């Protein structure tokens, strides 16, 4: 597995990298990021299974290994294995619950998050536990409740705003762009907006065009925003916790079809890095960059590719803004071929930006043009077959890799 301890691979000047401190930086829970009464007992686990960060938990734990969730393997449940098994939405809930317990300024706002338990059950049970002032049912008014979340974040609260479907947050776009993303800058650093905006997006099972939107492409140019996409229960919980603890506004993209993924996750508390990509499957021949649901299509294609004799390296980029060019760059230096598989539209999607970023930084390492497989530039049709053709399917990924490796 490529080591990341090396001098800065990016040619642009940056802070000098010392040998023990990689570009990722030790991710400490900064004391300033929280109010009083924090227990700094969380371990920060990075994808190459190294632990960093301040404060080893008092429980004196052994290392948590990074769990790769491949669809088939996750179901095996030997009782002797450490950790506990749960579904992705339960992992999100666990992360949220732990953060709400730990920090009284964390609150949840959204439609039907309280008494109803959340339309995808992510917040189920939280209202009974924390009360109506911390788990708030809002009326259907995205623009204003997102604005209210941002306003309360200006004073120091840490709201988690849920869009019942990411597409509904288009109504709150003004608040997210102007107030959420820009307030820290236009106020000269006076106000921080530690808000988390989350919700399911992506193409589901025949949900129709308006409920199958991919907002990561719309939000990606907003300065000041951070975006992450979760894909497994393990990273869902870790990213949820990291997003809540972050001082910056974070948009956490979940996927409608991934909520019922099952995986065994550690019992111990862990937080993941918001800016880090996940190495799903190391390989030698081609780098496949993907995120969210497409990860599973890629892994399915990977099986076929392996049978055909290819050795793809699959990276789940997880951090959509900013991109983790370290992990990506290291991979490109090894394989020299890149395929991006995403669910965004071809025009102006995450893949488009990622492609530019790779070309800007790693042009000399490429042996072939970067291929980008994205969804078609059409409103997602209702008809099942048409919907399947809108998104990238494993067969297309196999064909693309074969073309790249010719």
């Amino acid at each position: 597995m490529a080591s990341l301890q090396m001098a800065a691979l990016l040619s642009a000047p940056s802070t000098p990298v010392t040998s023990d401190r990689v570009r990722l930086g030790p991710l400490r829970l900064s004391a300033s990021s929280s109010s009083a009464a924090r227990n700094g007992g969380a371990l920060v686990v990075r994808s190459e299974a190294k632990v960093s960060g301040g404060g080893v938990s008092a429980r004196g734990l052994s290392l948590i290994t990074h769990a790769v969730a491949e669809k088939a393997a996750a179901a095996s449940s030997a009782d002797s294995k450490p950790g506990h098994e749960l579904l992705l939405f339960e992992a999100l809930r666990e992360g949220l619950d732990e953060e709400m317990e730990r920090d009284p300024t964390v609150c949840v706002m959204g439609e039907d998050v309280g008494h109803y338990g959340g339309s995808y059950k992510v917040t189920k049970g939280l209202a009974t536990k924390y009360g109506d002032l911390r788990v708030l049912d809002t009326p259907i008014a995205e623009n204003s409740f997102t604005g209210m979340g941002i306003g309360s974040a200006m004073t120091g609260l840490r709201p988690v705003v849920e869009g019942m479907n990411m597409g509904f947050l288009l109504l709150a776009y003004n608040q997210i762009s102007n107030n959420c993303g820009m307030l820290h800058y236009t106020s000269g650093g006076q106000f921080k907006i530690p808000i988390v905006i989350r919700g399911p997006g992506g193409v589901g099972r025949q949900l129709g065009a308006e409920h199958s939107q991919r907002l990561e492409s719309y939000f990606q140019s907003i300065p000041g925003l951070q975006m992450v996409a979760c894909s497994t229960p393990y990273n869902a919980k870790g990213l949820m916790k990291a997003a809540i603890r972050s001082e910056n506004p974070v948009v956490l993209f979940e996927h409608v079809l991934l909520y019922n993924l099952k995986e065994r996750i550690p019992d111990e508390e862990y937080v993941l890095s918001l800016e880090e990509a996940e190495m799903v499957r190391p390989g030698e021949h081609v780098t496949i960059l993907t995120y969210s649901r497409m990860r599973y299509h890629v892994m399915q294609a990977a099986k076929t590719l392996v049978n055909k004799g290819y050795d793809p390296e699959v990276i789940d980029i997880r951090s959509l803004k900013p991109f983790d060019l370290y992990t990506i760059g290291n991979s490109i230096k090894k394989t020299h071929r890149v395929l991006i598989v995403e669910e965004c539209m071809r025009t102006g999607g995450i893949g488009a930006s990622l492609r530019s970023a790779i070309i800007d930084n790693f042009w000399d390492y490429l042996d072939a043009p970067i291929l980008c497989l994205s969804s078609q530039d059409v409103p997602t049709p209702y008809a099942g077959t048409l919907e399947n053709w809108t998104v990238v399917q494993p067969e297309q990924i196999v064909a693309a890799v074969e073309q790249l490796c010719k």
Partner: protein
Amino acid sequence: MAAALLRRASTSPSASLLRPLSGRLFSSSSDESVLSIETSVPFTGHKIEPPSRMVDTTPKELLSFFSDMALMRRMEIAADSLYKAKLIRGFCHLYDGQEAVAVGMEAAITKADGIITAYRDHCTFLGRGGNLVQAFSELMGRQAGCSNGKGGSMHFYKKDASFYGGHGIVGAQVPLGCGVAFAQKYNKEGAVTFALYGDGAANQGQLFEALNISALWDLPAILVCENNHYGMGTAEWRAAKSPAYYKRGDYVPGLKVDGMDALAVKQACKFAKEYALSNGPIILEMDTYRYHGHSMSDPGSTYRTRDEISGVRQVSRERDPIERVRKLILAHDIAPASELKDIEKEVRKQVDDAIAQAKESPMHDPSELFTNVYVKGYGAESFGADRKEIRATLP
């Protein structure tokens, strides 16, 4: 010395005034005796009993009203000249004529209470404790500005005084303000938030959304409509089917206030604060007027007549907030006219000095382009999509 109660007779401008019974000499500003002054226009309530027209004030407070408003007026006039001299660029929305709202509100609340407003925020910033040098530096884009020069005219903020800005998008500050009120309730602070907006913004849907949520959750939010009767070039009757903005909260009570009378504003804000702390949101409509156009690029006379503007200003019409307080001070022998003139001269000098100082403040270094995009620390290290700091060499 017994407090001398002076009653202002009816609404006519040159009503005879009762002389104080005790032969008090011209008071110094440390005189704390309470004066009860009647507002010239009564309050109108919607679903609420309006407060009394008799406002308690002190000579000290009246003098402070005068000097604060004179400072604000002078600042705005100076900003006008700076803009024409191209030292201030972009948008510049001036508040002269509306000073009574800023000053009256401050007199009724503390720095723990929050204020959020739209882009006509220079005077509100001063009222919250901002100083002139910060204001002018920000307008001229210098480092000493209150937002480091990166915000501009529309983005003045002062966190330590609970002044939440300074927002460019019409109406978007009201949900933010309700969010601040939510946080105040969440933290049990016993404070309220005033979310100011204009008659133009009063037609924004997000206002009603935020009001609904605030009423549902009983938030200590006070929505204040600074009705200067023109949404840029559109008169209120052309934009709103119901220009009675204080009534538009429907289930939320409202109060209509003469916004050119600092004492009426003070009374209304005090009343609203007490109400909001226990009962949830309330709407205040400040009937006010702006002398300048909407912004510096708007002459302000294409949609209203010059007669109207001067009519409001004229002393005999008595609406100008500063003239009104001047008359009160003179009528109650709080200070002689010459002292007031001195205050105005002093204010002029302060503004000129502040401008000179602001001009000395340095312009930005190119590296400042990238500061404060993200909060450095947990989880965030870079600025661009590429996860590195982009260092641009600017010519």
